[in-house]
């Protein structure tokens, strides 16, 4: 059995990293993820890990050094937030394009401007097309569990791709919750040892990483990359099955909460899903069939499974904690695609909430559910996309 503790989300991520014991970490501090690498630096200073810590001068160099280190042939991790991820953007594509498994803790924070240090998903949603596996976490426990599983998913021979595990800045990163740590040995046995493929350090078998690929071969590279990314779906389920055995906690591609017979549903990511679950319970007590779909694996996106899970609902709201200005929220666009798979589908609306760390209260979830109830009954939609929880 593991240990039950009261810790912050950042603390839990640093602890998972200590247990994973990567060969190299290259990172640059940024609020609210700073504490992850700060705590990890103490593990390095105290000899609790074997890691070479590369304290680079920017996030661009952090990801560059991670790419070099992982290509050299070892396990590599880092952590960042917001502008840090934005500065890595060029290198995120290069990590995935070169099929380099790196595991990154992303403590979600709003992107500038205006400058804001609090939690929303504009950073990870902005990076959703960078070719990284994206796994979202509701709380510290999920983030810890997801980080450990991400190592196995990223390094799987059918995948070999970088992965980011996302949790909400401050709301989770700086809040103390009770959670369970697994034993060190249990984690180490679960992740296993790193098996390098084509390591740069094997100078007897020299390889060229990152060549120039012209139109005659480029699309073949990209198709292979897409197929590897899609393979992460089954691998995620396989890894989750093994993880349940060591932890007793089960994970899927998404969490469905009271969704089986639901007429109306919210699709909501990360910490706000916890708040929304309470409100769904209240609606259920009133005899209203409400449910929640909380995505976990966002890249690759499990369109078929999500489409099937929502096909019998009458009205669904996707709540996005980020926006695509001039378009729908990123979550909405994915759910809309997922719903196209079946001929029967609910009416789908989009609410943008919680940007820059604005609190998401139960009454927000309640108001959306009431609106869905109305839509389900009448079929009339007032507006498909709307901001909620802002001052007039």
């Amino acid at each position, binding site marked *: 059995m593991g240990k039950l503790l009261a810790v912050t989300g950042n603390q839990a991520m640093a602890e998972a990293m200590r247990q994973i014991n990567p060969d190299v970490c290259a990172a640059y501090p940024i609020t609210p993820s700073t504490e992850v690498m700060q705590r990890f630096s103490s593990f390095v200073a105290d000899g609790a890990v074997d890691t*070479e810590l590369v304290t680079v001068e920017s996030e661009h160099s952090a990801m560059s050094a991670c790419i070099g280190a992982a*290509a050299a042939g070892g396990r590599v991790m880092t952590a960042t937030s917001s502008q840090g991820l934005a500065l890595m953007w060029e290198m995120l594509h290069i990590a995935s394009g*070169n099929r380099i498994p790196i595991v990154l803790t992303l403590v979600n924070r709003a992107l500038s401007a205006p400058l804001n240090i609090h939690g929303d998903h504009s950073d990870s949603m902005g990076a959703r097309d960078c070719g990284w596996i994206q796994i979202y976490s509701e709380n510290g426990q999920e983030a810890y569990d997801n980080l450990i599983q991400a190592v196995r998913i990223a390094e799987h021979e059918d995948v070999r791709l970088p992965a980011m595990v996302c949790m909400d800045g401050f709301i989770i990163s700086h809040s103390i919750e009770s959670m369970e740590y697994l034993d060190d040995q249990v984690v180490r046995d679960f992740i296993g040892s790193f098996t390098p493929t084509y390591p740069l350090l094997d100078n007897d078998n020299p*390889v060229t990483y990152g060549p120039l690929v012209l139109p005659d*071969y480029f699309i073949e590279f990209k198709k292979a990359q897409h197929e590897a990314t899609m393979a992460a779906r089954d691998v995620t389920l396989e890894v989750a099955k093994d993880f349940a055995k060591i932890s007793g906690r089960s994970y899927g591609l998404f969490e469905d909460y009271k969704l089986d017979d639901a007429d109306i549903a919210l699709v909501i990511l990360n910490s706000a899903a916890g708040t929304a679950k309470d409100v769904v319970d209240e609606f259920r007590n009133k005899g209203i069939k409400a449910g929640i779909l909380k995505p976990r694996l966002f890249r690759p996106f499990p369109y078929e499974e999500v489409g099937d899970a929502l096909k019998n609902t009458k009205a669904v709201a996707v709540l996005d904690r980020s926006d695509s200005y001039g378009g729908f929220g990123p979550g909405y666009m994915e759910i809309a695609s997922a719903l196209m798979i079946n001929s029967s589908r609910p009416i789908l609306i989009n609410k943008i909430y919680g940007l820059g760390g604005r609190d998401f209260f139960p009454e927000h979830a309640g108001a959306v559910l009431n609106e869905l109830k109305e839509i389900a009954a009448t079929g009339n939609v007032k507006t498909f996309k709307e901001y909620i929880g802002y001052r007039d």
Partner: protein
Amino acid sequence: MSTSLKLKELSRKEELLTGGHRMCAGCGAPIIVRQILLASDRPLIASNATGCLEVSTTIFPYTSWKIPWIHSAFENAAATISGVESMYRSLKKQGKLDKDLKFIAFGGDGGTYDIGLQSLSGAMERGHDIVYVCYDNGAYMNTGIQRSSATPKGADTTTSPAGTVKQGKQQPRKNMTKIMAAHNIPYAAQASPSNWRDLMTKARKAIEVDGPAFLNVISPCNRGWRTPTNVTIELCKTAIETCFWPLYEYEDGKLTVNYKPKEIKPVTEFLKTQGRFKHLFNPGNEGLLKQIQDDIDRDWELLLKQEACDKSN
């Protein structure tokens, strides 16, 4: 056990940058890379900034590199190799690797002086055991001859064209070798493929030294300099004889000027060989030519003074 730097012995060593790549005839960069790779007695792992050298030597499915090689982006050859070197240290420390390897990065002046300066400065400050080699051809040649901070004053490039009002690049070059030396790294040097024994000796010192090292090597580009393809080595020699490109090295911060021309030629001897400086010889540009000569005289005197100062300490 090191190979002596004799042509006979060197000719028996395997070329680690193989022929058949697509660099231009007369380009300085592959000559420099071959000399450096030949100079090393240790197995090398290389990173390469985006640029002519990178795109022309690794057109998929071919590669010219017979050593492990990685390119990730333009501005980060130093950060990338610092990651490779960190993994090497980690695996060695853990007893997972039993090899004796050295690490080298190649970048042009764009990737070194400009867009990659921060990444390079960071890697040097962190003290990785790496060698960074800049092949300095004095402009962004890969994208079609745009000015860089290594472009000499007065040079005509596509973004500092010689026009009716402006006579080429307005600013003097950045002194990158001094900037690197100011990081207090154990070894920094300036070299030229024309003086191959000097370059190879410096490469060997840079590779052997424990810690970061920097080599700045002049690399003629016939496209950008607008010269014939068969004068590469002569251009380098003239650059040295005019003190446009002095050969010197900092060993643990102490400066040695490796070559002092008996009779320093005027810089016009260097400028007149190249189309990029042609407009400087038009009537009315005498003042500009004088400024260029004055800058070179001042820098050369400073170099000699610093060498004398370091020797007396």
